């Protein structure tokens, strides 16, 4: 039972990070029907930039409290990722908005490769470790361990999701985004600057991704130029699980996927009699993805959309 609870806690923490990244996929897909392949890489760049800033700050001002240093890292990573996403959209996606579907998908893959390899040239092939700046307090709860960091991740993630929800549902920009998602043409006729709304969508997604990138590197204690790939895939799976294009769905899908993965990795050995072990953890996201696409392509919360177009 305590293993169950422990894995549940781990899954929820990881899942809230997936949910944050999934938001970026789902928002862009909702508006452009484009799988922004490079989103995982934007997350990785966020983590890397933050770690660089943290490294510099630790050398320059060793007396600063650890939380402040990490916060400074996040605060630099956010605008960096926003600028990056703005540039990506403008250079690689906007000119292709009317091209055949395959074209922007291929550029997205290209951008993803470029970012990954640039990161490798800048930060090297080796793992960059996250310095032990954050307090390592742990609580015990019904036999499961919960660290302060885990609680902070979940609380921050929930806050961001609530903020995004408010933004989309209540603000002027949010209304413009929803209108654009329904029909670009009609939104334009109503006086919405569609180009600006699309840029804003990319930028908001990137800001959230930057935070998620720092979270994931703080949680695992390391960052790597390759980390965005798997993270992006899982987040995309989460977005599909929840119903792509649906913001609440991305949140739900992320949390669910995190839990499925953690429980799956914890129990797969027992279920298969030791045939498969926990190193198959990365496989679960794909199985979930394939199962969802087969049995409920619109996802858990998605409306029924025609899947041929």
């Amino acid at each position, binding site marked *: 039972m305590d293993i169950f609870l422990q894995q549940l806690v781990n899954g929820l923490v990881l899942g809230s990070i997936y949910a944050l990244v999934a938001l970026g996929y789902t928002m862009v897909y909702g508006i452009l029907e484009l799988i922004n392949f490079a989103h995982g890489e934007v997350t990785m760049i966020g983590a890397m930039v933050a770690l660089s800033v943290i490294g510099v700050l630790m050398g320059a001002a060793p007396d600063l409290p650890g939380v402040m240093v990490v916060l400074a890292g996040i605060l630099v990573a956010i605008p960096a990722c926003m600028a990056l996403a703005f540039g990506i959209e403008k250079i690689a996606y906007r000119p292709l908005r009317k091209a055949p579907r395959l074209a922007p998908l291929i550029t997205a893959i290209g951008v993803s490769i470029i970012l990954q390899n640039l990161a490798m040239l800048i930060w090297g092939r080796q793992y960059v470790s996250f310095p032990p700046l954050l307090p390592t307090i742990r609580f015990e709860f019904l036999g499961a361990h919960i660290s302060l960091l885990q609680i902070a991740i979940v609380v921050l993630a929930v806050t961001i999701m609530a903020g995004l929800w408010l933004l989309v549902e209540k603000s002027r920009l949010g209304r413009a985004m929803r209108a654009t998602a329904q029909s670009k043409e009609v939104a334009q006729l109503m006086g919405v600057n569609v180009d600006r709304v699309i840029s804003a969508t990319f930028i908001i997604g990137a800001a959230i991704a930057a935070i998620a990138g720092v979270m994931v590197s703080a949680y695992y204690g390391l960052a790597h130029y390759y980390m965005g790939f798997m993270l992006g895939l899982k987040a995309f799976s989460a977005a599909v699980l929840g119903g792509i294009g649906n913001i609440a769905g991305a949140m739900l899908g992320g949390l669910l996927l995190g839990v499925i993965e953690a429980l799956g990795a914890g129990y797969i050995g027992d279920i298969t009699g030791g045939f*498969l072990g926990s190193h198959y953890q990365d496989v679960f996201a794909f199985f979930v993805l394939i199962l969802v696409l087969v049995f409920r392509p619109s996802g858990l919360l998605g409306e029924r959309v025609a899947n041929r177009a």
Partner: protein
Amino acid sequence: MLDSLRRRPRLAFALLAVLLAALPFIMGFGLGNSWVRVLDFVLLYVLLAIGLNIVVGYAGLLDLGYIAFYALGAYVYAWLASPHFGLHLPFWAVLPIGAAVAGLFGVLLGAPTLRLRGDYLAIVTLGFGEIIRIFMNNLNAPFNLTNGPQGMNLIDPVSVAGLSFGKSLHLFGMKLPPTYLYYYLFLAFTLLAILVAFRLQDSRIGRAWAAIREDEVAAAAMGINTRNMKLLAFAMGATFGGLAGGLFAAFQGFISPESFTLWESILVLCMIVLGGMGNIPGVILGAVLLTMIPEALRYIGDLQRATLGHIVVDPSDLRMLLFGVALVAMMLFRPAGLLPSRQRKREFAAEDGVAEQEQASLYDAKA
């Protein structure tokens, strides 16, 4: 000169045949024997690119896990013709089995996903590619199926009628190393594949694929069984991949999961996109260029060492970066590829009016 050749296709074919037959000798004497090995890989990649072109170029289905079928072909070959299980079946039995297994997996993966929209297919195939790799990497316990990350070695070379391709052949006082022998074997398979691909393109099936690629709803309305046709494209592409995988295993004598990463899938995709999707000469050009360029890039490393005394930027690090830039640049500036098919060229150069009409039909389908 080209014009006079065009008017005499027979002569052109004869010249091409002589050139292809003499190519390993030209490369071998001119640039060194390591380039014959490069040639072998060029042919393997042409084979792969032609297979993927059926899926992506003809039917318009973006498959990002293509290398998984290559891996399956290679592993099946290794299981049936290596000391791993003590089986040593002849290659003419093993190759079709590998290709069939890959084709079967193509159907298994395609059946549930092909009724979905194209971009979902891209992600699912990508996931499938990773799943296969993860399994190959981990299936060394509890019983040793794939030998894990170490990979499988001592795979039997191809041998035909007592002639083993693993050893040099002495012919008329000349010594032909294995790389030369495999060149001719691969050339035969590649030419066969090219022929099949050409014939497919203009067949009823090929036209059905083109119709599905252009407008699936309209194709279905014309009585094309779109799901079966897409499945066929998928399975056929997978079969080509499995065949290339088997040849690869026999040629290398060693395989490991490292050879079957996502980047290989993307490399093959790059070849198609760069050369010209759907157009066979373009695809061949893409495969040749993208296999040769990294080899040529090695000289950049030597150049740096000669001029600067040390290596500033490792060319192998630059390789993927350049591919990424090429993908984006091609889509932006020459989306139909270096050697586009006539139809594609028209499609991409279509006036905005046409593009908007297509867009409109998209919205219709959604409503």
